[in-house]
Structure formats: structure tokens, C-alpha cells
């Protein structure tokens, strides 16, 4: 239970960064933090006491393995997060070229 709460606090730190920071870089980092917290939360739900990793080998009982389903889902989610981070960085660089700043309060003229 306390592990879940700490993970939720990490997620809230990410939301705090998105809501209060004015630099695009800090906002991108906050989105990254939220992604970490969400992935970690799913894997925390999958853990089982005194268990082993879900890879079959000799002398490993199937009934003592952790839940493999969230691991499979999070595996693809991590890779997609890398793609979206790269896209956000490219957008931020494009904005920097046009406006010469990362401050979102100074980026006002949103036209081509």
C-alpha cells in the first residue's frame, strides 16, 4: 500500500511540473516523469510475494511466477514513450528556431 502511495506521489510531482513550469524543457521532463510513474505502478500491481521472473527453465515452478501480462503491456509502452519524447523534443526545437525561446508565456503568435 505505501509503495502504491509513493508511486502516486511521483505521478503528482509530474503533474505539478506540467502545471507550474514555464519552460518547454521542464514540461517535457515532467511528461517523462508521469510516464515512469504509470509504468512502475502497473508493474507494482503484478508483483507476487516470493516469486520468480516469468521465464520457463528447469526447476522453476509455474505457480510461483509473477504476473506476465502487465509486463508485456508495459514493454511496448516504454518503447512508445521514447518515440513520443523524440517527437516532443523535435517540436520544441522547431518552436525554439521560430521564437528563440523556450518560455511558453512568450510564445504567443501561433501562426504558420
Amino acid at each position, binding site marked *: *500500500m505505501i*509503495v502504491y*502511495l*509513493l*508511486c*502516486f*506521489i*511521483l505521478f*503528482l*510531482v*509530474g503533474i*505539478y*511540473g506540467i*502545471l*507550474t*513550469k*514555464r519552460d518547454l*524543457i*521542464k514540461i517535457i*521532463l515532467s511528461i*517523462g*516523469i508521469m510516464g515512469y510513474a504509470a*509504468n*512502475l505502478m502497473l*508493474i*507494482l500491481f*503484478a*508483483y*507476487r*510475494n516470493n516469486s*520468480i*521472473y*516469468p*521465464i*520457463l527453465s528447469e526447476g522453476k515452478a*509455474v505457480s510461483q*511466477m*509473477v*504476473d*506476465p*501480462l502487465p*509486463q*508485456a*503491456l*508495459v*514493454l*511496448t509502452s*516504454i*518503447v*512508445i514513450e*521514447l*518515440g513520443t*519524447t*523524440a*517527437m516532443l*523534443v523535435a517540436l*520544441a*526545437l522547431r518552436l*525554439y528556431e521560430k521564437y528563440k*525561446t523556450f518560455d511558453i508565456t512568450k510564445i504567443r503568435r501561433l501562426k504558420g
Partner: protein
Amino acid sequence: MPIEIWLIFILCVMIIASIAALEIKDILSSIIAIGVVGLGVSLSFLFLQAPDLAVVQFLFEIFALIILVRAFVKKEFHQHEETKNNLLISIVTIVVLGLLFLLSLPVFQNLPVFGQPLMTVSEYYLFHGALQTGAANLVAAIILDYRAYDTLGEVTVLFTAIIGTLSILKIRSKEKNRETSNE
């Protein structure tokens, strides 16, 4: 030492590092602090018996650090001037998020206890996976066999994101070329 205490320790380090990453003025230190958070996630995946995920998360972290450092370090960083307005916004946000945390406490009480997951679907995968797919790694069996269409969709999302990134960067280089040719 029980695994929960290790996890609490790692999570506390990660929370401190993420707050530091958001509050530090220097952009390189901020990116390095994000690296601490990501490697903490990788380490806790190892503790939670997910070796595949730990490796993927580690690689993700290295790539993300390279992209962020390459993109942002040479740029002129906005100096955040402290004003009264900023402080007010921060305080209101912290209060609202604190209320959100308190209100969501009952949700966490209703969740299954840490270490005793609901394994209704996964039991089937665990016991029949080796026979039906022939894969020793059950995570790979689920990604590439039971949920292959799901994976196909996610790969499509990844492909779209990469195409978007490339096209954004390409527009930029075209405009640069035009500027240089005009000069």
C-alpha cells in the same frame, strides 16, 4: 531484507530526484536528475522480477538522455525570474494536488494488497503458454502471440511518432536551406 523496504527506498530517491530535476536552474543537471529517476525505475523493475523490462528501460533511459542532451544543452536557457504570481500559482497547485492525493486514498485501500495480485487471466497464460506457443519467455509469448494485434497497433503508433519527428525536422532543414540560399 524484504523487497518492500528496498522499493520504498528507491521510490523516495526517485521522488527527490524528480523534484530536483524540476527545480534546478541548470538544464544539464536537470537532465541528469531525470536520468536518476529513469535508472531508479530500471532498478525497481529488477527487484520486481521483470528482467526484460529492466533492460528495455535502461536502453530507453540512455537514448532519452542522448536525445535531450543533444537537443537542449547548447541552447540559451530561459532564466526563471521569481515573481509573486509564480509563487501563488505554485501554492495553489500544491494545495489542489494535496487534496487530490487525500481524496484518492480510499481508492488505494480498495486495491489488492502489494504482493497478492489478482491473476485471473494470467493464470491461463502461465499454465498454457508453453504448450500453446512454445516460447520459454512468457512475456514474449504474450506480446507476440496472445496479444499480437495489440502489439501491431502499438508498433503503428511508434511508426507514426517517428514519421512525425522526421517530418518536423525535415521542414526545419528545408527552411534553413532556403535562408542560406537567399543570403
